[in-house]
């Protein structure tokens, strides 16, 4: 029921903010919701699955570039480019997952980092699509030729819908037999194999799905900013996503979404304050890692006891 309350609050946000004269915050909130979508997708593999993926930004970037490249070819219909983005990102996740999931622990972290960089450099070299400078979209994705998400509010509700949909999907998945296997594989993969589960196949499926959702987030981000660049795929972005998940509480799906909101809001606030806001961000990240490891969900749980 808490979920419905949150959804209602988020749905009511635009008119409320407009009424308070802070209508521009809807833009930031849209961005936060997009990252919430990505963070929740990451939480499924990282928090539930125990797979510390340090290349998640690549999935977002691929989704964004799917939109951009399609746009450059004259294809703008959302019903085409959004699934395309998900397919491209999910496909990349499946292919790299085939190699990465043969490893464990630190190896996995470093390999996903490396694959993320591979995507980053590949895209930087695509001078046809802006290379290092990136690419501007002169309009957002359309639906039946109609610019349905050009406006601030329509886009917000689309982003909210996507995030809410992803939350519901991941929640149901987590409660399913598939989710149990992912849980068990995190705790003791050898035991799961001995029980008769094809752990690698399950993890690959989770990884690919997570990647596809990341691609959707990337497609939305490209539309939101009407701009895409290799920076979307940088390892710093991957790190930020991990921070969002951990901040909210790595074991909590909703927490990841909340963590995303907090990080985006923080970055917005800090960057307005100083040019070197990353130092403050770094200190916060460090503090969380050292002292608040359980994240906000953990702190809440402790307060309740």
């Amino acid at each position, binding site marked *: 029921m808490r979920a419905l309350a949150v959804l209602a609050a988020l749905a009511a946000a635009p008119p409320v903010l407009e009424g308070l004269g802070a209508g521009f915050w809807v833009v930031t909130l849209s961005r936060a919701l997009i990252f919430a979508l990505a963070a929740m997708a990451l939480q499924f593999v990282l928090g539930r699955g125990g797979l510390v993926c340090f290349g998640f930004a690549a999935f977002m970037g691929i989704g964004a570039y799917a939109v951009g490249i399609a746009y450059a070819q004259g294809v703008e219909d959302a019903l085409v480019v959004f699934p395309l983005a998900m397919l491209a990102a999910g496909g990349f996740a499946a292919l790299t997952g085939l190699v990465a999931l043969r490893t464990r622990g630190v*190896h996995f972290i470093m390999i996903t980092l490396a694959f993320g960089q591979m995507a980053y450099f590949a895209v930087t070299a695509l001078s046809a699509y802006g290379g290092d400078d990136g690419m501007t979209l002169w309009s957002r994705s359309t639906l039946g030729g109609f610019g349905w998400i050009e406006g601030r509010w329509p886009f917000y509700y689309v982003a909210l819908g996507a995030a809410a949909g992803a939350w519901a999907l991941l929640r149901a998945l987590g409660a399913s037999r598939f989710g149990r296997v992912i849980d068990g594989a995190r705790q003791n993969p050898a035991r799961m194999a001995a029980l008769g589960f094809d752990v690698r196949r399950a993890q690959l499926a989770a990884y690919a799905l997570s990647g596809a959702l990341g691609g959707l987030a990337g497609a939305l981000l490209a539309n939101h900013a009407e701009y895409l660049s290799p920076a979307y795929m940088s390892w710093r972005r991957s790190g930020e996503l991990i921070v969002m998940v951990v901040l909210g509480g790595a074991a909590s799906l909703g927490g990841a979404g909340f963590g995303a909101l907090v990080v985006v809001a923080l970055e917005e606030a800090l960057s307005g304050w100083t040019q070197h806001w990353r130092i403050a961000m770094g200190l916060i990240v460090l503090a969380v890692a050292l002292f608040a490891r359980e994240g906000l969900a953990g702190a809440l749980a402790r307060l309740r006891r």
Partner: protein
Amino acid sequence: MSLTLLAVQALNGLQLGLLLFLIAAGLTLVFGVMDFINLAHGAQYITGAYLAVFFYGHTGHFGAALGLALLAALALGLVLEALVYRRLYHRPHLDQVLATFGVILILTEGARALFGPSPLSLPRPEILSGAVPLMDGLNYPVWRLAIIAAGLAAALGLWLLVRRTRLGMQLRAGADDAEMIGALGVDVARLFRAVFGLGAMLAGFAGAMAAPVLAVEPDMGDGVLILAFVVIVIGGVGSIRGALAAALLVGLVDTLGRSLSTDVARLFLSPSAANDAGPAVASMLVYVVMAAVLFARPQGLFPVKAQ
């Protein structure tokens, strides 16, 4: 492509490889002995480069700048170890990743704040500037040869350290079972500090040596750090021998790949398409090699920890 050009690129590849080895060696040692994944290792590299520039500006003498930069890199490493890393040795890797990510955000932005975002440069020392003729029509910069020599010396030094000294023995035992050697009376905290300091100095040294040939800027650590990770993953996490082999492989593949890719692409594509595809493929080449190695041997070429 002419033989001369190929030879030059091969030497460049060797140089890059040895530079990567200096960085990767510290990274893999720290992981092997302390089971600690340090994303902020690149900061040591940047420190070496920036401080070399800084001290050169104040002393006008390259040798002094190098020495001071090394000491400062060591000091920074030890301070970080004492303040932050020490608390993370027994924590899950995710915590280590998170914390060192925070550190690198602070340090790179700090470098940008202190020195500005524009690239800085460091002139080569007089006696080691210029080029020497290596073969007919091939003049190779002395400084790059110096880097190669320094890298090889460091590799030899590390080998001697690990195989022939008491510290090396503790290192090898500690990589196996740190708790055990602690119980046997070895000062494990001091060993960890020594390993950390060694790694920090090697990376700082690499940074200072690279400064005259590369642009010194806040983001210079990024590409190099990721490559260092690729190196230790290919070589086998915890193995210095693996780090050397993999570093040379990566250095050569990357350098030769970049110089040859456009030409190879031209064999199959139109010149304009090749100009695009060539660099794109080149940048991905190292990762493709990494994927191929890992597909066959997920633990790397010279796995250390028995799984």
